[in-house]
């Protein structure tokens, strides 16, 4: 009887000690950043802004520096950068919003997904059309949803062509030096074949295995995924079929490496290994290749053209949320971030493309490469931005589009059969999205 009590006491006191240790730790650590609503701290009205963030390269570090500068100017504001992995960003944000604890700010790729919880930014950024007029045209599809300005662009990405300069030089192939010298796809295919033969490239173009990168060719052939207002799909129109047939030809001739689209190899690794002639990817690879490629020279050149030239626009934004309790401070911080001075600093130090029209950023590395990417975006048709801004519809069938392309490459289906099937699924997705509205 007595002994059992003793044991119980020991266990309870062990637990108690742990609790005390824990309590002690958390109070020393979180003392300064307890939330504003229930803890009036030393400075009169200190507010804390939670900023949900994900990191691809060094931009997290750059943002922390910008935040530190901002906090110096605004001592009453504390910005807490919550870093989450990109894949789990949506889960985290949606739980926070639905659970009644939205963050003040977030970095997102598709503001539209959070439109209903978003804070209207016109009080801070001014008239929405005037504000958006300084940015690339395609960005308005993302930032203005249901006639409300809900996000500010921070950086853009462009699909483009990175090539192995060492192999091209060895084969004696020169890349176009200006937009006037852009290759046609046939000329490009011949150039790649020469680099493979004379330069010793084991692979031709390693083309990212994503529907997003595939559509670069679709837009160049004059096609698109949706019609102008996404009430119908154009994915099985003749232009799209032509684009897919041409892609198959490129793969059949080994100009586009089979290893990626049919073999599941990672294109980044293949290009980094120095055995691929070129990589069809995008501007986001510049910082990565700068750091990881040491044994050969590489560069960026213009994408070949079909009927027109085109890249595909991608972008990242900051947005604020309703009911965070700190809407005003969040709006003002977005105004600060979106200003030309701060955003230029951000893109320069992170090695990103500026979202502005005619950017004049000088980078420490690869300014010429960024110019090529910016030029690609400037000549891209509106559809190349609009299609991918419809994140309420497009993710529902992009994996089917990818599968359809693979089936055609394998010779299991003709381009028309495969794309007719995708069109069916796209129409269902469009209908579903309209019903949800």
């Amino acid at each position: 009887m007595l002994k059992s009590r003793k044991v119980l006491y020991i266990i309870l006191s062990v637990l108690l000690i742990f609790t005390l240790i824990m309590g002690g730790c958390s109070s020393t650590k979180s003392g300064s950043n307890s939330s504003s609503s229930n803890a009036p701290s030393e400075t009169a009205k200190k507010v804390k802004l939670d900023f949900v963030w994900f990191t691809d390269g060094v931009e997290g570090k750059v943002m922390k520096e910008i935040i530190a500068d901002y906090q110096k100017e605004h001592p009453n504001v504390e910005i807490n950068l919550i870093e989450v992995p990109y894949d789990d960003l949506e889960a985290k944000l949606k739980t926070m919003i639905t659970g009644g604890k939205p963050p003040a700010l977030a970095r997102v790729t598709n503001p539209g997904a959070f439109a209903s919880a978003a804070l209207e930014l016109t009080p801070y950024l001014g008239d929405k059309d005037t504000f958006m007029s300084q940015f690339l045209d395609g960005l308005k599809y993302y930032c203005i949803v249901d006639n409300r300005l809900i996000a500010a662009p921070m950086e853009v990405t462009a699909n483009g062509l990175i090539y192995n300069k060492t192999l091209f030089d060895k084969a004696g192939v020169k890349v176009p030096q200006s937009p006037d010298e852009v290759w046609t796809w046939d000329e490009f295919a011949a150039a790649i074949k020469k680099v493979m033969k004379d330069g010793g490239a084991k692979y031709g173009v390693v083309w990212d295995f994503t529907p997003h990168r595939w559509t670069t060719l679709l837009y160049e052939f004059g096609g698109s995924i949706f019609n102008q207002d996404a009430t119908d799909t154009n994915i099985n129109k003749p232009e799209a079929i032509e684009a897919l047939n041409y892609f198959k030809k490129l793969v059949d001739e080994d100009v586009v490496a089979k290893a990626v689209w049919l073999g599941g190899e990672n294109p980044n690794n293949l290009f980094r290994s120095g055995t691929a002639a070129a990589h069809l990817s995008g501007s986001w690879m510049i910082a990565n290749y700068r750091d990881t490629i040491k044994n050969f020279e590489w560069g960026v050149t213009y994408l070949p053209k079909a009927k027109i030239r085109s890249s595909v626009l991608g972008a990242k934004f900051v947005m604020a949320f309703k009911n965070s309790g700190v809407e005003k401070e969040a709006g003002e911080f977005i105004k600060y971030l979106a200003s030309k001075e701060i955003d230029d600093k951000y893109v320069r130090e992170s090695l990103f493309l500026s979202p502005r029209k005619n950017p004049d950023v000088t980078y420490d590395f690869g300014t010429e490469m960024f110019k090529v990417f910016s030029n690609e975006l400037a000549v891209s048709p509106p559809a190349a931005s609009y299609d991918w801004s419809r994140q309420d519809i497009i993710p529902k069938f992009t994996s089917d589009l990818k599968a359809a392309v693979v089936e055609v490459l394998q010779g299991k289906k003709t381009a028309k059969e495969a794309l007719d099937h995708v069109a069916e699924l796209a129409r269902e997705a469009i209908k579903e999205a309209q019903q949800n509205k």
Partner: protein
Amino acid sequence: MKYRKNLKKLLVYLLLIIISGLFLIPVLWIVLSSLKTPTDLYKWPPSLFPKEITFVNFETAFKKGNFGVYFYNTTVVTILSTIITLIINTMAGYALAKYKFYGSNLILIGFLSTLMIPLEIIMIPIFIVIRTLGLYNSLWGIIIPPAATPTGVFLIRQYLLGVPDELLEAARIDGASEWRLFWNIIVPIAKPVISVLAIFSFMWRWNDFLWPLIVISDPQKYTIQLAISNFIGEFNVDWPSLIAMSVISMIPVLIVFLIFQKQLVKGIVTSGLKE
């Protein structure tokens, strides 16, 4: 005769060594990869052994985050959560195995049915509960909710079913209280299965990702898994740092396993033996 026996033994051992080698390759690969330079890491075709051994990945990873704090947080969370799990699961399992009361089976079925509901579905309701209790963004928010593991209750109940009722009756006749019965008879008997649960619980909490992701917002309270996954971006994965930190995060689980492994083997052996 003896020769043949030895030959057979040799073959069996050889086979076992080959199989365990196969299982070890991924672990070995990640450990060796963490010692490569980033350029070496991306080399194609890849090689198993590093060209030169370097700790540069560990250095850069430690510079990128406050990993000392993350390890501390994870350790506190894992240990506390495991202690709570062990206490409440043993008690619940014992009650469900040895006390006959109205609705005990219903409760057991209730426990078990929660096994079939993935966290993703109940995430938002639990989040609201946590927020209302004021546990949001605190380590307690990731210690308490996952501590209630139905698997543990089930494991312990099944094990204790094998303990003869006569043993408990005899103790009761000798005048032992119910508490004493639990602490002095049941807990020592259940030691193997408690060890098994301890290892599992340690592993689960150490590797927890989704729930800490939802609850924790303050970088000072990040767990190691949260910090590691932040190396994954939209287009790029910071493989060198990710691999280096994964190697370090494997060590504690390994240590715990080494401590409890004898009990674990015993647990597996005896839990298969019912009267």
